[in-house]
């Protein structure tokens, strides 16, 4: 047998054997995920998006440390415009920026507060400084912040709101709620969608018909009224955490439909591939076929879909809270923060209260760019 095997290798050698470099050999043994990563890396915008998303989530996780103030810390400076960071005082440049002191005064005629910059007082920005006490990751209490200024100085880089609270700190705290609602909501939809979609695609027949009609019904419902109706049904006495979960469930009730359709479609598509039949003919069990052949072949699509669904969830939460139907103060989310911007007079006078909206826009854009790159990379075998 050895002889004939050798002669056959020669035949193949003549057919299409070529000397290959180390680089090519590396590609040939590259798994699906490393091929995806190679594709993804080429998409610069997507990589940038991924970095922004990463930073956002980092910020959300370590919110207490990164934010200079606690979310509820009030100050006497109500509706104060953002304080600029100054590196250069006109004479010399210093790497350690400072903020200038503010003087507050009451305009006797209009009863509004006015703030003037006191250029004589400078508060240099200090890193790893002590400030408000917070609970670090729910583990222990500490008062070390990433940056801050010594009292009585203030550092309100995005300005303050109607109670004199720092908008930057509140946006960072809000991010931890808004971003996690996106994740938790998508996980809920994923479980529902993968389960129902998988059942629908695998069993087919009447089960399939029922699930598909249910999805069509749910998709045909207009989202905003549905959300409004459901969140109106959330009891007023519920705690903040209960409301939080209620809102994520409301959001994912709609979100699973799209995912279920994708799972079903991919299930139908891949179960007719020859390699699935080959596995069946080799005696593989159904479980092995589903877990080794079917799931891996569309897992990448599911991840892409989930990536693109997270911004939808974040926007949904923002919309609900903005309308006053979602989370309520004292819980802070981006939607709750933006609720203040519903009043045109407030927006016109104090435009900086729209800054939390920038976080939303930045996150959603970053997610979309990242999802775009993932989608291009998802199937490395198609040219």
């Amino acid at each position, binding site marked *: 047998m050895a002889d004939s095997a050798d002669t*056959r290798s020669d035949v193949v050698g003549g057919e299409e054997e070529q000397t290959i470099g180390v680089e090519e050999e590396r590609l040939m043994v590259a798994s699906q995920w490393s091929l995806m990563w190679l594709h993804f890396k080429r998409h610069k915008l997507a990589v940038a998006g991924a970095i922004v998303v990463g930073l956002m989530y980092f910020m959300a996780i370590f919110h207490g440390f990164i934010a200079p103030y606690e979310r509820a810390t009030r100050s006497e400076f109500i509706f104060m415009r953002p304080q600029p960071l100054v590196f250069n005082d006109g004479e010399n440049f210093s790497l350690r920026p400072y903020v200038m002191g503010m003087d507050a005064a009451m305009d006797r005629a209009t009863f509004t507060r006015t703030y003037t910059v006191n250029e004589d007082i400078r508060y240099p920005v200090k890193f790893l400084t002590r400030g408000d006490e917070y609970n670090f990751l729910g583990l222990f209490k500490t008062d070390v912040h990433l940056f801050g200024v010594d009292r009585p100085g203030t550092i309100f880089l995005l300005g303050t709101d109607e109670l004199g609270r720092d908008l930057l700190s509140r946006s960072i705290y809000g991010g931890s709620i808004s971003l996690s609602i996106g994740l938790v909501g998508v996980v809920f939809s994923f479980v529902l969608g993968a389960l129902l979609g998988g059942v629908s695609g695998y069993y087919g027949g009447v089960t399939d018909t029922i699930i598909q009609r249910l999805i069509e019904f749910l998709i045909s419902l207009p989202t905003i009224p549905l959300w409004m109706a459901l969140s109106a049904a959330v009891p007023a006495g519920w705690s903040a955490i209960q409301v939080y979960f209620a809102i994520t469930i409301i959001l994912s009730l709609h979100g699973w439909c799209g995912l279920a359709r994708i799972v079903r479609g991919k299930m139908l598509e891949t179960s007719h591939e*020859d*390699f699935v*039949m080959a596995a069946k*003919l080799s*005696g593989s069990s159904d479980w092995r076929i589903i877990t080794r052949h079917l799931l891996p072949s569309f897992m990448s699509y599911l991840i892409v879909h989930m990536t693109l669904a997270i911004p939808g969830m974040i926007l949904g939460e923002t919309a609900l809270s903005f309308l006053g139907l979602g989370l309520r103060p004292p819980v802070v989310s981006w939607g709750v923060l933006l609720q203040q911007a519903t009043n045109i007079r407030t927006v016109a006078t104090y435009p900086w209260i729209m800054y939390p909206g920038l976080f939303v826009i930045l996150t959603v854009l970053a997610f979309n760019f990242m999802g775009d790159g993932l989608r291009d990379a998802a199937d490395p*075998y198609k040219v």
Partner: protein
Amino acid sequence: MAENTNPMLLRVNNLVKHFPIRRGFLKTNVGAVRAVDGVNFHIRERETLGLVGESGCGKTTTGRCIMRAIEPTSGEVLYTRSNGETINLPELERDDLKDLRKEIQMIFQDPYSSLNPRMTLLQIVGEPLTVTKVAHGREVEERVAQLLRIVGLRPEYMRRYPHAFSGGQRQRIGIARALALNPRFIVADEPVSALDVSIQAQVLNLLQDLQAEYGLTYLFVAHDLSVVRHISDRVAVMYVGKLVEMAATEELYYTPLHPYTEALMSSVPKPDPRATKRRIILEGEVANPANPPSGCYFHPRCRYCIDICKEEEPELLEYRPEHYAKCHRAEELSLRGVGG
């Protein structure tokens, strides 16, 4: 061609596969596509039976029904195991079937969709070994290396993924997988139709070498008449879910008994450029397997059609030794083969 007197390996009796047509909201059954409509044939040990016919005539479905890749509607597939025991495949329980998978394997048409792009060669070729628990760990690796060598690939390739290989190499991988469990019988479903002509010859030769070495029996499904002629001992011709003729290769090619076979043979390109072209162009369309014509399914397109053909369906009869045909006029007509 010498008469094959080897013991019978497979006998297919009245194999039927109907695909129901479901329509409307309630998915009511409104009819059936008769993909395979009463097929009879037999294969002896170490023999290659070519199954030819045009697209949609049920060749592939026949192969898959034998494999139980799809469940036949009715009929018998009698398979004789190596210990002499004869079993009817469609009646087998799931567990017994698993045992039988070791003896019957399949080679697929499309070398691209038949290999999971997310698995290495080791996992693909080793899968039959691991799921049947024939080998474990190192043994799998050794056996895969051996199999790759047998099909003419380097064992070092086993860590690579299929995307690193060309169509011809991928088909070799598919063959290695089919050989993994030392089968006796292989259903080859158009194994070369997706390949370049130069690669086709190599894969065909590999299949022939393997047959000689391991005493394999092939059911070779194809639509390319010259490929079938090259590899088959006997050839069966299908038309709209039925077998219309079956004979030893040369006999079928030179002295066909069925008008459909004659038309097929006239379409084989001749290497002589000066040869007069006398192609028989069939009128009309292939019959619809969901609504086949009366009598002989071929009669609307047949040049020799007489009244009885429109009313009565002919039987598949043995008109000459080992030469079966399904035609009322098989005895009176003298049809042209490839040479004529």
